[in-house]
């Protein structure tokens, strides 16, 4: 009570002071107020006295819990620094792999086992410096010298981007407690711990578990601030038990590859301990764990929600060996029910090479499900695209036109000197079924009926090298079989002569074909993109060529009209929409412009019907390099890239070609005196890299803008080549 009285005196003293200051206020006001205040403070004191040791109020209790959790884990979080290029590597002139400052790691074995991520220890680093936490008793001041040890890379999990290190501590390290007993719940507290800011004290960021089973069932998602300051550190529950290892995982859906793009964005990932713990013995033995591959692919426009029907079965893959066939529908994988393609990815992505999986599936046209067993592999045999040499008629996405297609794949034109030409196929023929001519009796060939060119693409995607096939073809209501041997995809994509076309597509000389210039405006984006399209109401779906010029900033309509002049004929002749995307900055192409590409494509596809198998990017100089980056960003839809007087960026990642990720690359230049030696020279290295990744590389030269336009639009048409 004394305290309350003391306070009352203070108020009185203070209120009289205030009274002097504000003379106009009646004094009873003050008395009343003071009385009220006293009641308030008396109440407060009474409650505290009446209820012995009171629970701290929730906010404070939580804060205490956070701080306790951090203390619980502190001895198990180390700092990791890579200084480690070998002298040999340095003298060999190899570029350093920049590791952006220190990183964190978690003790997973008291004998010196430390788990961290690839971010701290890039693939070419074998040794790092590990800084141990200060001894338990040490307060922040005075600072004791910290113990540093050499950490050796023992094992890697390439699927989850984790690295296991071993060091030799003098005393056992503190092992943390893993939260593997109960399932991780969305909404529970998540504390992100790192030892980057301060080697003496771990840092903490607070959030909740935003989701589980992210990154195709490899990660927990949290809204705690995740960044290089805590990659490799633990994500804790409120008890201080480890939920997972914080890791920059790729958010593929958002087009982010390194995983670091998302730092401090409210989206962060951690690899759950319950997935890691079973792998630790293998990592400790020095294994490199790789993503497990089955060798299947789908040909659908919706690779997420599409039906789980397998279209492509890669030759000699685990899928092929276990008896999976094109057309199979997957029912379950390792007991997980599969309803759409996304479910397959969720089931397969966490698996590693060597894992054995049980798949229940139904062959096409059969009722009884089959159970098969497959052992996943780390590498599929190299894949080169093979072709028949037909360019199918334009594909459509619209339902009303689907029916017309169901009868087979109609040929629009024939590639010169191709197996199809030699076998005698003609434009307007329709391929209705296809089979591989194996040892099987000719009468009982397993013909695969074709409803769309996607299915034919899937069939071809599963073939390797020169394979003998038979096609059932409908020509003027008569059915005929055509036998041929598939050929490798053309090395030089554009033949000197135009390929055999339907007569109707040949332009009438002297007539300027009608084209339209349309504005493609995106909400909230200042820069307008433009498209040159054939001016027609009805017509087959359009191919798309997105052209990136040298950066020049916004384009006026007049500039676009002038630019369009040389494209008019090509656009109408080949049914291509040419999109011109101006750079937002007049000096350079920026990352942000990439996002506009996708939005612009969306706007275009809302206004015009687009053939998804004929989308190409092209660019001039800086725009050419940017076109390459754009094709990487939208790799699932872009079938070809043409770089005119440009090369691919030196550090750009070139992924192995696969049926789902296939790209035709052209290097182009204006035709000077003489051509080929001059054009090819600067791109030799890129050409070599691309070819070894299984992609066809061609060279394109042209005399003037008209020819450039024609050749590019013809190439867009040819992107549909099968």
């Amino acid at each position, binding site marked *: 009570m004394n305290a309350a009285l003391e306070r009352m005196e203070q108020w009185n003293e203070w209120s009289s002071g*205030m009274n002097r200051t504000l003379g106009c206020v009646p004094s009873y006001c003050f008395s009343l107020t003071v009385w009220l205040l006293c009641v308030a403070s008396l109440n407060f004191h009474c409650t505290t006295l009446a209820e012995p040791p009171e629970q701290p109020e929730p*906010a404070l209790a939580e804060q205490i819990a956070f701080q306790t959790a951090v203390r619980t884990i502190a001895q198990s979080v180390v700092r990791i620094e890579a200084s480690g290029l070998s002298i040999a590597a340095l003298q060999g002139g190899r570029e350093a792999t920049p590791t*952006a400052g220190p990183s964190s790691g978690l003790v997973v074995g008291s004998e010196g086992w430390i788990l961290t991520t690839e971010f701290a220890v890039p693939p070419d680093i074998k040794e790092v410096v590990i800084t141990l936490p200060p001894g338990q008793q040490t307060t922040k001041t005075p600072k004791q010298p910290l113990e540093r040890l050499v950490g050796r890379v023992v094992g890697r999990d390439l699927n989850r981007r984790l690295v296991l290190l071993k060091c030799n501590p003098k005393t056992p390290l503190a092992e943390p407690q893993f939260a593997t007993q109960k399932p991780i719940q969305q909404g529970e507290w998540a504390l992100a711990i790192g030892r980057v800011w301060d080697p003496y004290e771990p840092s903490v960021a607070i959030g909740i578990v935003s989701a589980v089973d992210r990154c195709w069932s490899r990660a927990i998602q949290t809204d*705690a601030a995740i960044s290089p300051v805590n990659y490799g550190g633990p994500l804790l529950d409120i008890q201080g038990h480890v939920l997972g290892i914080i890791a920059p995982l790729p958010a593929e859906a958002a087009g982010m590859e390194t995983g670091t793009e998302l730092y401090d964005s409210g989206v962060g990932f951690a690899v759950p301990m319950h997935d890691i713990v079973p792998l630790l013995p293998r990592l400790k033995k020095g294994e490199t764990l790789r993503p497990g591959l089955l060798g299947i692919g789908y040909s659908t426009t919706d690779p997420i929600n599409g039906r789980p029907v397998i279209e492509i079965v890669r030759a000699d893959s685990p899928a092929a060996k276990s008896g999976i066939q094109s057309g199979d529908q997957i029912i379950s994988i390792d007991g997980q029910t599969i309803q759409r393609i996304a479910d397959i990815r969720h089931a397969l992505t966490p698996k590693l090479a060597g894992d054995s999986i049980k798949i229940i599936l139904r062959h096409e046209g059969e009722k009884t499900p089959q159970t098969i067993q497959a052992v996943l592999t780390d590498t599929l045999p190299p894949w080169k695209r093979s072709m028949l040499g037909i360019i199918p008629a334009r594909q459509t996405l619209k339902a009303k036109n689907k029916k017309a297609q169901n009868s087979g794949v109609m040929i629009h034109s024939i590639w010169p000197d191709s197996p199809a030409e030699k076998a005698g196929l003609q434009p307007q023929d329709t391929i209705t079924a296809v089979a591989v001519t194996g040892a099987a009796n000719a009468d009982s060939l397993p013909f695969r009926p074709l409803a769309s060119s996607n299915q034919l693409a899937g069939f071809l995607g599963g073939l390797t090298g020169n394979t003998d096939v038979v096609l059932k073809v409908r020509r003027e209501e008569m059915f005929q079989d055509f036998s041929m041997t598939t050929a490798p995809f053309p090395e030089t994509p554009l033949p000197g002569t135009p390929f055999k076309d339907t007569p109707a597509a040949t332009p009438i000389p002297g007539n300027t074909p009608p084209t339209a210039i349309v504005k493609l405006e995106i909400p909230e984006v200042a820069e307008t993109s433009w498209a040159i399209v054939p001016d027609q109401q009805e017509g087959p779906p359009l191919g798309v060529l997105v052209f990136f010029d040298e950066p020049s900033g916004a384009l006026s309509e007049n500039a676009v009209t002038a630019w369009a002049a040389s494209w008019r004929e090509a656009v109408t002749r080949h049914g291509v929409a040419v999109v011109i995307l101006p750079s937002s900055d007049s000096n350079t192409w920026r990352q942000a412009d990439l996002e506009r590409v996708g939005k612009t494509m969306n706007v275009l596809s809302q206004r015009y019907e687009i053939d998804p198998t004929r989308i190409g990017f092209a660019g001039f100089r800086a725009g050419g390099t940017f076109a390459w980056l754009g094709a990487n960003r939208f790799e699932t839809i872009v079938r070809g890239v043409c770089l005119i007087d440009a090369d691919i960026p030196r550090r750009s990642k070139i992924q192995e070609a696969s049926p789902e990720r296939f790209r035709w690359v052209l290097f182009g230049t204006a035709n000077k005196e003489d051509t080929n030696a001059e054009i090819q020279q600067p791109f030799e290295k890129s050409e070599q890299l691309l070819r070894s990744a299984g992609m066809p590389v061609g060279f394109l030269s042209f005399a003037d803008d008209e020819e450039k336009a024609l050749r590019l639009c013809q190439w867009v048409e040819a992107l549909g080549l099968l």
Partner: protein
Amino acid sequence: MATTTLRNTCSRSRSLEFLVAMVVVALTLCSASVRGGDVTSVSVDAASRVTKIYGAGGIRGLESYQTGILVSSSGHIITVLSTAIDSEAIDCVLDDGRRYTATLVGVDLRRELAVLKIDGDDLPHFKLSADSPRQVVGTRVLALSNLFGVAVGDERVSVQHGVIAAQVPLRARRGSHEAAYRGDVYILDCTTNNPGSPGGCLVTWQGLFIGMLGKELRSAQNGTWLSYAMPANELALGLEMILSGQTDQSLADQTQSLDFDLQSLGFILVPDLLDLTPPFVEAVTRDTLAAASGLQTDDLVVAVGNRTVTSQRGLRQELSRLIPGDPIQLSIIRDGNIVFVDLGVIPAIAEPTRER
């Protein structure tokens, strides 16, 4: 604390409204006392001591607005030194919507602080003290600022919540320039490095004023954006200096980084060809400190004293921080083990002696 709340709040009200205000305050006080960290009441109270600042700028990348903290009843405002306040006309808008034109009182170049003054009296404010205790990691905080300038007129500034993630010396850069201030800051786990945030106030969930939100800077360590706040005691020191008329032009911390001459210690590194060339020892000169310490060719230097280095540039930077008399202790990797070598102390004369 209670006294301050009352005095600052009631002094803003006039005559008869005063009573009402007192009652409200009494009730607020009551609830705040019982429930402690009441985010709402703490935010409302802190927001009344924060001002939106509008000044020059508005060029791409440089915002024309930020936040400031009232630190005296007569209208002193502390904020970060930036292009926004490098202006003839600086406007400050208080929590109740009152708009004042502010004058610049002074700046502290090292802490990158500025003090403004508006013509007011009995304004609610935070009292700064050089003895403000430091908060510990994990402390829950509220950050109040004119984030992205969304608060207009009498709209209350935005409140963000988070914890103190770390407490470390600031090592930051803006573009390629290092920030001048190298003292301790609070690193926050909420994103406070957005336009408008600089100069915002940081309070605990109990309402204790503990710091001011810093500028939009990147970490010199790993290039990520920093969300940090300068602790209250540093602000108090800066304020005191500015008000006493001193203008600290000595950017002592910054100018000392001289390129260190390793040869004077007796060793050279492999050619520095890359951004991150590792500090491998190329050769050790006979009869030098380095030779005496046992340093050998092919040793990889990984730390100077307690600070890790990962590149030659890092090694030079760390060595340049040492002053005459400091011990030179290097940690090196040799045959897969970490070995310490002691090169004695930095010679009294910093200039390298060249004997032939």
